[in-house]
Every structure is written in structure tokens, then in C-alpha cells.
């Protein structure tokens, strides 16, 4: 790694490798920043979940921590009124479109959404927004994998995991509210050429893709 720099996060002095993304530096130092779409070993981050906002001294508005590279003398606050408002709004929007069924969900207890709600004291059930269920069928046609698109938060981790495994079965299709992770021709996973490696289920931060019991 390159040279070490010193930064301040929430008043804590941290030394980090220059150019590292702030999100990972903070997480390595036990400072939790909510995040869904980012992955440590990927070169690029989609920065699409809009949950990892932090306040940076000298910047007019909060910035996503997953796109902020660490530099000498950086001063960061992970919480502020503006950050909390942004995260709360983003989280509520995600939850308005997420089928809440924690009790029967395979991700219950290790779900990133539950973790964020707990860390930021947010409610899982949206207060101000109506719940818009996608109403799509659950797909359990592939060996070892269950896919419930109604729980998907569109982070894209499964797609990247699928590409890394060398299969490239999954991808984003359609647009806007209809956007969904699907296969070529919207085929069920079982007919799509999926090998059932379940890398996607490993990658899924929520319960949308899970291993079949």
C-alpha cells in the first residue's frame, strides 16, 4: 500500500492508507456507516444506495463515504442533522418497496437493513410512505437458491458476484419502479443456465437471494 495518512472521524484520530475509501477505513476502525451497494474488493462502486453519507469539513453538502478517498488531514463526521435526514429518507424509500417478513425471512438476524435500522434508530416499517409491493413471484427453480425479487434493494451485489463467478446470469432489467434483477429473457433461474453456485446468495445483504434449506 501507499503512504499512511492521518484522518479524524467523529473526533477519533485514525491512520489509513492514502486513497483508500473512507467507508472501509471507518468500518475497519469500528465506526459503523450504513451501506448496501458498496463492496470492498470492487474497483468501482455504484454509490446507488445513498446510505453511507458523511459530513466532510470544508464540503458544502454530505458526500457518500464509498466514493470519498482518504487524504491527509481529512475531518469527517458520520452523523449530523443533514446526514441523518438523508439516510432516513433513503432508508424509508428503500423500505417502502421491500416486503417486510422478517419472521420468516432467511436473512433474519443477519440482514443489513435490520442492522442499519438498529444503528441509526430507524423504523423498518415506513411511517410516511405507502408500501408498494412489487408483487412478483418468488423463484425457487434453481438448485439451492431462492430468489424473492420483492425483497430486493437493487444494490447489485448479486450481479457482481455472478460476474465474478464467471457466469453472468444476473443483470438489471427494466427501468424505474419496474427495475429488477433478472436473467436473460426473464427466465426463471432454473432455466437460465444458472449453475447454482449461490455466490449471489452469499452476496445479498438482505433476504432477496438466499440459499435453499
Amino acid at each position: 500500500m501507499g503512504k499512511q495518512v492521518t484522518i479524524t472521524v467523529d473526533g477519533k484520530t485514525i491512520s489509513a492508507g492514502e486513497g483508500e475509501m473512507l467507508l472501509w477505513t471507518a468500518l475497519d476502525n469500528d465506526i459503523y456507516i450504513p451501506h448496501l451497494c458498496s463492496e470492498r474488493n470492487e474497483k468501482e462502486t455504484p454509490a446507488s444506495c445513498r446510505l453511507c453519507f458523511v459530513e466532510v469539513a470544508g464540503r458544502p453538502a454530505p458526500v457518500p463515504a464509498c466514493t470519498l478517498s482518504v487524504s491527509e488531514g481529512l475531518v469527517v463526521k458520520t452523523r449530523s442533522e443533514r446526514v441523518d435526514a438523508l439516510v432516513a429518507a433513503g432508508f424509508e424509500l428503500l423500505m417502502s418497496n421491500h416486503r417486510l417478513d422478517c419472521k420468516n425471512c432467511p436473512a433474519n438476524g443477519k440482514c443489513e437493513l435490520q442492522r442499519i435500522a438498529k444503528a441509526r434508530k430507524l423504523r423498518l416499517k415506513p411511517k410516511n410512505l405507502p408500501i408498494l409491493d412489487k408483487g412478483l413471484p418468488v423463484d425457487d427453480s434453481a438448485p439451492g437458491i431462492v430468489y424473492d425479487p420483492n425483497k430486493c434493494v437493487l444494490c447489485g451485489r448479486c450481479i457482481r458476484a455472478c460476474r465474478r463467478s464467471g457466469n453472468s446470469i444476473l443483470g438489471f432489467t427494466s427501468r424505474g419502479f419496474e427495475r429488477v434483477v433478472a436473467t436473460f429473457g426473464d427466465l426463471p433461474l432454473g432455466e437460465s443456465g444458472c449453475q447454482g453456485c449461490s455466490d449471489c446468495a452469499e452476496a445479498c445483504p438482505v433476504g432477496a437471494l438466499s440459499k435453499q434449506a
Partner: protein
Amino acid sequence: MKLTAEETIVAVETTREILSGIHDSRGSLIPVLQRVQNKLGYVPPVAMQEVAAHFNIPAVDVYGVITFYNQFRLTPPGKNQVKICMGTACHMRGANIIQEAWERRLKIKVGETTEDREFSLERVACVGCCTMAPVVVINEEVNGKITPTRVDGLLFSYELDKKNEAAAKGGENNGQ
């Protein structure tokens, strides 16, 4: 929608022809798909697979682009193209109810074609005759003040026309 063997061959050959001589940089993806659609009237899965192989990208990425843009059709256009106006006036006068009526009667969703290839269903933005809202354009013919019963009526008249045409043809053949 099942394509005939002949359609598949035509689609593959047309796509290969369009792809020949095109560089494999991803920037050419959408122009290529547009050309395929211009030639065939739609972009079938076999064409998408050919394109994906040419650009060396996963087929699902091409499918993602096709489903992202409204300009691309996945199914061949029907003999009669039904376009439901979704402009502001038509929307306010219940165009979504009209859409449902068509979907129910034709047993297809918007963007699809009936199994017999007689009808295809589309949503369009304002067709410019808001006083007649809600409007449905069938081929080039504008039909105003549509109601679900009128949908039934329109379909009935098309069936009738078809029967008459068939009868006329039959008559001609008999005459010869």
C-alpha cells in the same frame, strides 16, 4: 411468444449482417440494436444473443438495455397495432381503464402481441386530439371517446371485417 424457424433464421442473418464491420466497442451497442429493430420491427432474443456475443458482453446486459428503453420491442408487431394514448387528457379520462380493457380482451400485456399476430398493444404519449379523450389509435385510424364496451365493439368490427374479407376472397376464387 414463439418465433417460427424461418423468423429465427431471418433474425440471426439480419443481425449478423448489421454486425459485420462494426467495431466491438460498447458504444456501438445501441445503434446496432436500433438498426436491428429498424430491419425486423422488433428485437428477438436470438438477435440479442448474437449482439452480446459480438460485443463480448453478457446477454443479460443487452436484455437490460432493451428493456430499459421504450423504443425497443421484444415481440413482432401485430397486423393491427393498437396504440392507447396516455397523454394528460386521456390519462385523466381513464386511459388506464381502457388499457386494462384491451389487455383483458386481447389477453396480452402492453408491449406484447397476440398469439395469432393479429393485434399488438402499445402505450403512446399524446396523439394530439385531446378533445376526443380517451383516444385509441388502431393502425392509422383514430378512435375517440373510448369506453370498455367500445373496445369490445372495435374488436367485433375487426372480426367482422376479417370475415367479410375472407368471404370476398373466397367469392373471387370461386368466380375464377
